[in-house]
C-alpha cells in the first residue's frame, strides 16, 4: 500500500469515531436502531401468524350420537379449532359468525350416524369465515385432513382389516408449521434494509442539510474515506441488529440454526452492500431528510410485499414476481431461510449469492458515481 493511500485511509478513522459519537447522541435514531429489532421481532413473530391456531368454532350437532361426538373430538384435536360452544339451529350458527364470536362452524346433519352405519357416505360440513382467506384456507385443509384421517380409521374398524393405505403427513423444516419460524429469519433481512437504506440515507442528507458535507469535502479526507466513514458504521450496526434478532429469535421463538452462522454473516455482506447502494442513491436524490425518509419507505413497501417475506412469491402474479427479482431482499431471504432452517451449504445458495453480488455491484457503481458528483 502506497504512502498516499495509507494517509488517505487514515482519515477514515476520525469519520468512524465521529459517526459513533453522533449515533450515541441522536436519541431518536439510537432508539430506532435498538428498538427496531425487538419491535419487528414481536410484530412479525407474534402478531402475524399465518398459521391458524384455536379458531373459535361452534358446533351444530343434529345427529347427537357417539359417532358425531367422535368427529367433534377429532376436529378439536387438530388444534386449528377451538370449540367455543354449541348452537341449536342454522340461524343461531349464522348469528355467531356474523357477530364474529365464531370464525368456523361444524355442522353434523341428523343422518350422519345413520349413513355411516349403513355404509353410505356420511357428510359433515365445515363452515369457515373466509373474510380472512389465509386463515380460512388453512382451517379448511386442516379440517379435511382430520376428516380423512377419521374416515380411514372408520373404514379400518368396520372392515377389521389393516389399513389399505397409510398416509403420514410430515412437513419438513418447520414441523409444527409455525409461521414464526418462517417469518423471523426474514426479520433480519427487513431490519437490515431499514437500517442501511433509511437510516443511512437520512444520515448523509443530514450532513448535506447542515453544511458539514460541504466542509468535509474541502478537507483532505478524500471521497473514498468520506463514503466509507459514512457507510461502514451502519454496516456494523446492521451486524449487531442481526445478532440481536438471531439471539432473540432463538430464545423466544426457538428458531433453529441448522447451518453455518459464519457463512450467514459472510453472505450478509453482498446484501448489505446492495442496501447501502440504495441508501446512497436515495441520499443523492433526496433534498431533505423528510424526502429521504419517504423514498426509503417507498422502497420498503415492495420489499415487504414482494420479496417473499410474508407472502409466497409463487402465488404472485407474474409482474409482481418480476419486481421481486430485482429486490436484493428476495435473494437474501433464500440465503437466510436456507442456512437457518434447512442447514444448506454454500453450493445450495450460490445462485442467490451471485444475484446479490450483481445487484450490489450495479447499485454501488451508480450510487457512488452520483454521490461523487454531488460533492464536487
Amino acid at each position, binding site marked *: 500500500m502506497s504512502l*498516499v493511500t495509507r494517509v488517505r485511509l487514515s482519515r477514515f478513522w476520525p469519520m468512524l*469515531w465521529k459517526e459513533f459519537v453522533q449515533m450515541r447522541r441522536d436519541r431518536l435514531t439510537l432508539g430506532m436502531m435498538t428498538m427496531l429489532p425487538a419491535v419487528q421481532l414481536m410484530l412479525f413473530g407474534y402478531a402475524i401468524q399465518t398459521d391458524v391456531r384455536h379458531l373459535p368454532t361452534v358446533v351444530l350437532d343434529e345427529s347427537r350420537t357417539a359417532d358425531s361426538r367422535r368427529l367433534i373430538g377429532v376436529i378439536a384435536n387438530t388444534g386449528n379449532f377451538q370449540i367455543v360452544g354449541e348452537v341449536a339451529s342454522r340461524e343461531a350458527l349464522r348469528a355467531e359468525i356474523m357477530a364474529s364470536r365464531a370464525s368456523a362452524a361444524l355442522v353434523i346433519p341428523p343422518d350422519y350416524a345413520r349413513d355411516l352405519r349403513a355404509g353410505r357416505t356420511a357428510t359433515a360440513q365445515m363452515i369457515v369465515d373466509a373474510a380472512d382467506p389465509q386463515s380460512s384456507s388453512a382451517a379448511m385443509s386442516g379440517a379435511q385432513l382430520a376428516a380423512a384421517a377419521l374416515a380411514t380409521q372408520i373404514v379400518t374398524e368396520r372392515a377389521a382389516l389393516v389399513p389399505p393405505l397409510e398416509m403420514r403427513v410430515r412437513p419438513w423444516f418447520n414441523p409444527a408449521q409455525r409461521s414464526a419460524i418462517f417469518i423471523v429469519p426474514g426479520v433480519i433481512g427487513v431490519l437490515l434494509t431499514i437500517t442501511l437504506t433509511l437510516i443511512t440515507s437520512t444520515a448523509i442528507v443530514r450532513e448535506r442539510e*447542515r453544511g458539514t458535507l460541504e466542509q*468535509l469535502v474541502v478537507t483532505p479526507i478524500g471521497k473514498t474515506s468520506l463514503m466509507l466513514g459514512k457507510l461502514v458504521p451502519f454496516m456494523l450496526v446492521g451486524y449487531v441488529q442481526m445478532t440481536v434478532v438471531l439471539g432473540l429469535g432463538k430464545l423466544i421463538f426457538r428458531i433453529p440454526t441448522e447451518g453455518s452462522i459464519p457463512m450467514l454473516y459472510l453472505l450478509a455482506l453482498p446484501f448489505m452492500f446492495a442496501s447501502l447502494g440504495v441508501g446512497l442513491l436515495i441520499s443523492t436524490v433526496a433534498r431533505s431528510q423528510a424526502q429521504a425518509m419517504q423514498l426509503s419507505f417507498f422502497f420498503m413497501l415492495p420489499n415487504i410485499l414482494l420479496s417473499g417475506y410474508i407472502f409466497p412469491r409463487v402465488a404472485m402474479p407474474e409482474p409482481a414476481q418480476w419486481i421481486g427479482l430485482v429486490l436484493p431482499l428476495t435473494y437474501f431471504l433464500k440465503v437466510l431461510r436456507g442456512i437457518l432452517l434447512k442447514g444448506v451449504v454454500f453450493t445450495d445458495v450460490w445462485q442467490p449469492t451471485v444475484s446479490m453480488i450483481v445487484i450490489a455491484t450495479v447499485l454501488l457503481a451508480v450510487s457512488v458515481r452520483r454521490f461523487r458528483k454531488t460533492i464536487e
Partner: protein
Amino acid sequence: MTVTPAGPSGAPAVVTRALRKEFGASVAVEGLDLTINRGEVFGLLGPNGSGKTTTIRMLCALMAPTSGSAEVVGLDIEHQGERVRERIGYMSQRYGLYDDLTVYENLRFYSTVYGLHGDARAKRLAEHIHTLGLDDRINQLAGTLSGGWKQRLALACATAHSPEMLFLDEPTAGVDPAARRDFWKSIYDLAAAGTTILVTTHYMDEAERCQRLAFLSRGHLIALGTPKEITTQFGATSIEDVFIELQRRDEGVRV
C-alpha cells in the same frame, strides 16, 4: 503529521492563469488572471451569480477548471488537489459544525481529519481553545452555542491545522456587529502570522478592511486593487457605491 512549508518559498499564495469554468452552455468564470500575495487579506466581491463561489471551489481543488490553470500555495489545483486541501482552510457561512458534537469533539474531529494526532494534536487543540477563548465551553454541544460562538468555533476548526491559506465564504453573514469585529481581529491576527486570507462578503465595511479587492461580474474580473484605487477608478465615494453600480449593471438596469 506536520504541516510542511509551501513549495517554492516566496511564491504567491494564489496564481490563476486564464482560469475558465463552463457549466453546459453557461460560463461561470471567464479568463480569470489573479495573483494573491502571501499574508494578504484579499476580498472577492460581486453580486450573486458573479462566479465567486465557482472560483473558490476551483481554488479549493473541488472542481476542475474547464481551461486555464491555477496554483494555490505553490501547488497545481488540478494535479495536486489532495495536497492543496491539506494546506488550506475553508469556512463558509454555514460553518460546517456538527451540532450534536461538543466544541472539543468538533475541534478534535477536524484536526484529526487534517492529519493531527497524539500529543501534537492535544497540544495544538489546547493552544487553539485558549487563543479563541473557548475554554469554558469545550464540553458544550456546538448546536447550543450562540451565533458568535459558533463562528468562532468554525474558524477554530478551519484553522486547527495551521493552514497557509484560508478561504472565508461570507463568514460573517447573520452575526452581530460585536462578534463581527472580534472575528475581523482574529483574521488580522492570522494574516499577521503569515496566513493568506481570501474572503467573500456582502458587508461593504468588511470589504473596506481588505488590503486588496477583486470585483467579479458575470464571471469576469472587472476591477482589481486596493479599496481606495477601486473607488477612484469608478469615481465613487465608497466601495458600497461601486457595488451597487455593478449590481445595477449586472441586472441590466441603466443608471
